[in-house]
């Protein structure tokens, strides 16, 4: 196993920040991790202003910087309010939104175009596979999602997709891929359902089924590379380096802190999924500070001298580095998966590691081996 050298320390300037304009979501998806999603807690403009003071300075020092509006459902904040939150950020900063698409209409599309926003939507495949996405009355959201997609198409707005898969199995890989090719997204990311936040459902899955799912997804992409496919392309990027004997060069040298700014200004680093939990036993609220009282760059710099859960997380990362042959591919188990699966951060392999990293890489290798034999 190589001596992994990537992901040591934290970069001074992140590549993006996540903003939570509201905790509210108009949907109630079965696998959602978000607490407070039935409650409307809007981000005060003062939080955006305080965040922007640091972000604008960061953006002036790098080629690209992004602000990702996440939720809750970010569009539930409304156009006027979201516009007020975006206003403090300097021109040239890229704005992205991850939305359930149900509120997208012509007016929203005009808003997206006016603000040059990049759009990511959440949909899990055809109607029967998107059945877990529903409103609080239990009504399926699929038709409303498709109306949003139609609006994006009418306005010529490209969109990425995040697809949650709860039951990965080989035949689903091809079916989903063909569906999303037809849907017309330019980018697809697959999230195997995770056990985190308020979603306590077991995320153990049959290893062979998960590997078969990824192998079949690889096969479908190979036959028709109609879109950017996050997991498969990243796997091949790593495997190409491994074939050259350069697998330790793939990870960034230092870790991006991925600052998440919660609606009230509290800042959580590394795992957005930890935001919004106020009194975790032993850990408190996971926040390293609040932009209303401390500049964001000072909060991020605290990661260089970690205490509390962050120190425990970094210790866990070092255990991953020392023991896991897949470290050069993933950089260590995510903080939120460690916590929500084990209740602590200094563990190593999570079920999420297995489903989304290890079985992924092995599934791509399975396909490669099988296709190599056929050649």
């Amino acid at each position, binding site marked *: *196993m190589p001596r992994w050298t990537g992901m040591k320390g934290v*970069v001074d300037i992140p*590549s*993006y920040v*996540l903003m939570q304009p509201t905790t509210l979501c108009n949907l*109630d998806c*079965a696998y959602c991790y978000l*607490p*407070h999603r*039935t409650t409307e807690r809007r981000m005060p403009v003062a939080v955006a202003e305080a965040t922007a003071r640091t972000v604008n300075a960061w953006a002036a020092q790098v080629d690209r910087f992004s602000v*990702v509006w996440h939720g809750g459902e970010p569009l539930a904040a409304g156009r006027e309010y979201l516009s007020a939150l975006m206003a403090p950020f300097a021109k040239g900063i890229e704005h*992205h939104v*991850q939305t359930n698409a149900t509120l997208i209409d012509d007016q929203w599309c005009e808003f997206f175009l006016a603000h040059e926003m*990049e759009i990511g939507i959440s949909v899990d495949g055809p109607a029967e596979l998107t059945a877990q996405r529903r409103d609080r009355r239990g009504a399926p959201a699929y038709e409303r999602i498709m109306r949003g997609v139609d609006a994006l198409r009418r306005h010529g707005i490209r969109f*990425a997709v*995040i697809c949650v898969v*709860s039951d990965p199995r080989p035949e689903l890989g091809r079916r989903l891929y063909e569906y999303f090719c037809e849907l017309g997204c330019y980018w697809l*990311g697959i999230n195997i359902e995770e*056990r985190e936040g*308020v*979603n*306590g*459902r077991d995320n153990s899955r049959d290893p062979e089924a998960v590997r078969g799912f990824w192998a079949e997804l690889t096969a479908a992409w*190979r036959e028709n*590379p109609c879109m*950017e496919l*996050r997991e498969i*392309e*990243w796997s*091949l990027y790593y*495997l*190409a380096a491994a*074939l050259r004997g350069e697998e330790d060069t793939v*990870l*960034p040298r230092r870790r991006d802190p*991925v600052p998440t700014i919660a609606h009230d200004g509290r800042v959580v680093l590394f795992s957005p999924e930890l935001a919004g*939990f106020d*009194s975790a*036993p032993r850990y408190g609220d996971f926040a390293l500070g609040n932009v209303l009282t401390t500049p964001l760059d000072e909060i991020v710099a605290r990661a260089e001298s970690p205490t509390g859960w962050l120190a425990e997380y970094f210790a866990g990362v070092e*255990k991953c580095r020392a*023991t896991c042959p897949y470290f050069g591919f*993933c950089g260590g188990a*995510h903080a939120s998966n460690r*916590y*929500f699966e*084990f209740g602590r951060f*200094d*563990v*190593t*392999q*999570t079920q999420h590691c297995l489903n*989304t990293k*290890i079985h992924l*890489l*092995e599934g791509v*290798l399975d*396909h*490669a081996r*099988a296709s*190599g034999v056929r050649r």
Partner: protein
Amino acid sequence: MPEPVGSVAEQPALSPSHPDGTATQRQPDAAGTRGCPAPPSGAPADALAERVRAAADGLAPLVAQAEAVRAERARSQAWPRWTDVFTTQFTEFSNRPR
């Protein structure tokens, strides 16, 4: 498929035993870590590189296709893709073109 977490009502606090009160948390091993077990193939844990090399014939066309589509995107959209400049953890939020 198990039923969803009972209520979506406000969750006032996080419990590591999970807010729905039904799930059982996984346990670390005695060393305080779960450790990384042998890979799914049953091969030794340090044999990943060997398995990659063993799949080289089948990987070659896949890698070539991935490089080709990435190069084409870079040409047509004038900026590197996220797969070219991988600067973040591998999260759902890495959805911007990089």
